[in-house]
């Protein structure tokens, strides 16, 4: 589905990501963790073609096609979608207008009303997008749009941050649905999920995890094992971990 080959990213002349390489096969969900400022969000920007960054070298391959220089909307149309960590406030658009635009830009999802209900967004639809939305509302509006988009590859940035337990359940179910994880044998949807807490692992089967430190992948493996390690030794411990040496 997605492959990164030696990707190097700079922002304002400063290197942010160095030599990032990994592969997400069809139907797999991978987890990305790492300390604040390590470059996780920047990595999603690089894949989506957004943000004020520059890809210095390396390739991003999506379904066999080099998309490194493709405009953002073309990437979206090929099937990549994002739930942002901190989406912008767009006071010019109501959530309803936005969802309508997303629907028209995509395949015209037929079940929008049902998705609005599922994400408990009904009362938000006439509000201006993200203006005074609570933390949980911001996340639910992200997942609503992502469900309408129904991408092949979902890039999800900290779905649980600022969200209470009830809403984590709502978002967990959305993730599950997005990644079509109810199908065990015939999984085609893929995901790359950034998380600090691992709560979200309760709601999905993650196949692999990476620890990003200071812009490079310091460790990879079974995501549950990685979380346990980090919980015990912290990210500092990760740098010295014997497994990775």
């Amino acid at each position, binding site marked *: 589905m997605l492959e990164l080959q030696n990707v190097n990213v700079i922002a304002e002349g400063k290197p942010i990501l160095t030599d990032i390489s990994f592969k997400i096969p069809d139907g797999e969900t991978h987890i990305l963790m790492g300390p604040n400022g390590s470059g996780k969000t920047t990595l999603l920007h690089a894949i989506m073609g957004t943000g004020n960054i520059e890809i210095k070298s390396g390739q991003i391959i999506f379904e066999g096609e080099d998309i490194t220089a493709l405009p*953002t*909307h073309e990437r979206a149309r090929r099937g990549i979608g994002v739930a942002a960590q901190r989406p912008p406030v767009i006071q010019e*658009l109501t959530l309803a207008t936005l969802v309508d*635009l997303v629907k028209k*830009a995509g395949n015209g999802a037929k079940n929008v009303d049902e998705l609005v209900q599922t994400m408990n967004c009904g009362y938000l639809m006439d509000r201006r997008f993200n203006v005074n939305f609570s933390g949980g509302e911001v996340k639910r509006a992200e997942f609503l749009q992502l469900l309408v988009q129904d991408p092949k590859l979902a890039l999800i940035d900290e779905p649980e941050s600022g969200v209470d337990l009830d809403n984590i359940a709502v978002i967990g179910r959305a993730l599950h649905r997005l990644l079509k994880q109810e199908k065990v044998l015939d999984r085609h949807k893929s995901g790359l999920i950034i998380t600090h807490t691992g709560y979200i692992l309760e709601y999905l089967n993650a196949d692999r995890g990476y620890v990003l430190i200071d812009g490079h992948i310091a460790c990879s493996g079974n995501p549950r094992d990685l979380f346990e390690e980090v919980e015990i030794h912290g990210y500092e411990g990760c740098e010295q971990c014997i497994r990775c040496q």
Partner: protein
Amino acid sequence: MNNRKAELKKQALAARDKQALYGPDMELGGYGMGNGEDKRLKNLSDIPSRLKEASLLAGFQAGEEQRSGSYLQQGENVLYDRVKDIYRNQIEVMQIEEALKKYEWLWDYWWKTVAVDTDKYTAWTELHHRGGYFMRIKRGQKVKMPIQACLLMSENAASQRVHNIVIAEEGSRAEIITGCSTSPKVDEGVHLGVSEFYIHKNAELSFTMVHNWGAAFHVRPRTGIVVDEGGSFISNYILLRPLESLQTNPRAVLRGRGARVRFNSIIHGREHSLIDIGSVIDLQAEESRGESVSRAAVSDEAIVTMRGLLRADTDKTRGHLSCSGLLLSRDAVVDALPQLSVSGAPGADLAHEAAIGPVDEESVQYLMSRGLEREEAESAIIQGFMKVGIEGLPEVLDQLVKNLGRQITESGRG
């Protein structure tokens, strides 16, 4: 009465060369005054096709399907003024000259909200006026269908000088949709329009005006509004096409307890347009409330000034002013000048906000990440920008604003 008429003429003559407080000065002498011959249409559907097209752009229905009454003027010639039969007991719509002949009392409404010697434009209108409409919504009548008016220009380098009076009698409710427009080949001209609105006790009036002038037009509307106790006036103004210059600064006086006024302006400054638009709201009675919202998208080398003045001299008054400019080109010039003034009213509550900026790049990228092309994303944001804070636009306007977002991005942002 004759004394007053003579006095008005005298004041107008004295102010004939008086420059306006705002906006570029201009010479009025060079424009044609027309032949002054009225050729009435029997039916509105007899309107020549080139005029029909122009009027349509300004939201005018030649078929009158959804309208209670209509007024149509081309240059100096009043082509049509009529009220549908079933609305005759509710409203009156007629050429102002006829109304002044019919109703002696109308002189008490003549030049009462706008001073005749305000500037050369009011003076010229008094000295040379031809046409303009008189609309009266009768006491207690709630009029279901809007009244429409259209002022057209179809001769090049001519001037139009109209004086309109609208009276909403006690307890009435109505909507007026007016448009000003030019035939396709008419580029140059002057429009002077004095409009006086009287909103009596508990009356509600919504007034929507769409402007579509030629690229070398000078436009100087002069508008005054008084609102009595419990009355409400909403003005929606929309300007979409390029022109040479527009300057207007309508003033509303809220003189009765609980009176309300709201000005909404939606502007697209294009090409070399010089636009200076404002509003003045005088809060003179307790519980009165005024709001003004201006939205200007500015392309090419257009220059747009948005003014606003809220003035309170009475307690328990409230006002809010909001001006926003969206920059769509390097050379666009935008000034936002909101002003608040309170004297001797420690309980008055006035506020303003102003913002000028480009289309937010992060928002555009966000929409692109959802599959929208850049142009689609920008268009959606521009369209949304025009309506922020403006609720309940009449349908005609809503449609125009929708097209506008598209039009701006399609024509390139300059």
